[in-house]
């Protein structure tokens, strides 16, 4: 069960509105490698994970991803709340504005709605953890691309923090995969699926 804590994981205080930055950063809310998908991936995968240490790691990283969803939304909110209608039009935010005004809605930078088809929950520990490793790298690349496109130091600082978390999660998932393999037949990791075969 979950409880909400009324604080951000890392402070966000953006002084200058920037619609163009918001338009690309929102992809980390509802895009293909975003934080919402990340949280749902790990929190969905944990139920069939047969090892307590890995099920706990999926719970804990999935929970941290929920805190990252909140951070991305805080960035987009702060970047857009003081925009004039002229600035909205100039920054290319008009198509988003007409549907959502100042509300937060999970979509990619290209406007594609959030979809569960961006992640898997396969019910096989090696398969799921291998997906998780790739997912962390894809999110890291997205943050690298955002850093190439954004010049506001208040935004860059937070994005760097989130990028670093992807690397930490990749490291922990790598260790989890190694722990899973230690439970299996070292001559053939695929002899059984420990989440299904008894």
């Amino acid at each position: 069960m979950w409880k909400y804590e009324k604080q951000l994981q890392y402070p966000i205080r953006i002084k200058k509105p920037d619609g163009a930055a918001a338009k690309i950063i929102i992809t980390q809310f509802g895009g293909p490698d975003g934080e919402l998908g990340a949280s749902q991936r790990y929190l969905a995968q944990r139920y069939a994970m047969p090892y307590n240490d890995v099920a706990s790691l999926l719970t804990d990283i999935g929970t941290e991803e929920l805190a990252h969803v909140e951070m991305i939304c805080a960035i987009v909110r702060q970047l857009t709340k003081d925009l004039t209608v002229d600035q909205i039009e100039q920054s290319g935010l008009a198509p988003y504005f007409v549907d959502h005004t100042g509300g937060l809605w999970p979509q990619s930078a290209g406007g594609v709605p959030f979809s569960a088809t961006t992640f898997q929950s396969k019910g096989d520990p090696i398969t799921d953890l291998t997906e998780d490793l790739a997912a962390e790298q894809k999110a890291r690349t997205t943050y690298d691309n955002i850093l190439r496109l954004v010049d506001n130091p208040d935004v860059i600082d937070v994005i760097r923090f989130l990028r670093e978390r992807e690397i930490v999660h990749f490291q922990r998932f790598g260790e989890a995969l190694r722990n899973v393999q230690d439970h299996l037949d070292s001559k053939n990791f695929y002899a059984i699926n420990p989440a299904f075969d008894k």
Partner: protein
Amino acid sequence: MTEREKALMRVQTFSFALNEANLFLDTHPKSREALDYYHKAVKEYNDAVQTYITNFGPLDFTQVLSKDTWTWTEGCMPWEGECNVEI
């Protein structure tokens, strides 16, 4: 019911009571009656949590009491039936 199940049931009871008080107070912040209920339930809840974590392990990752083992990953997972109280 095992001792763990009794302790867990107490946590769940007051946790849900607080949940309900939380929502009610969000829309009735001036209700003295609801605030009294909330404060009583918080006390019972904290007490129930303390009893549970000293005897049966952490409910959240800030409640690991052991100085030499990371007990957070131990025990049953809450989504498994055998981890739950039979009502």
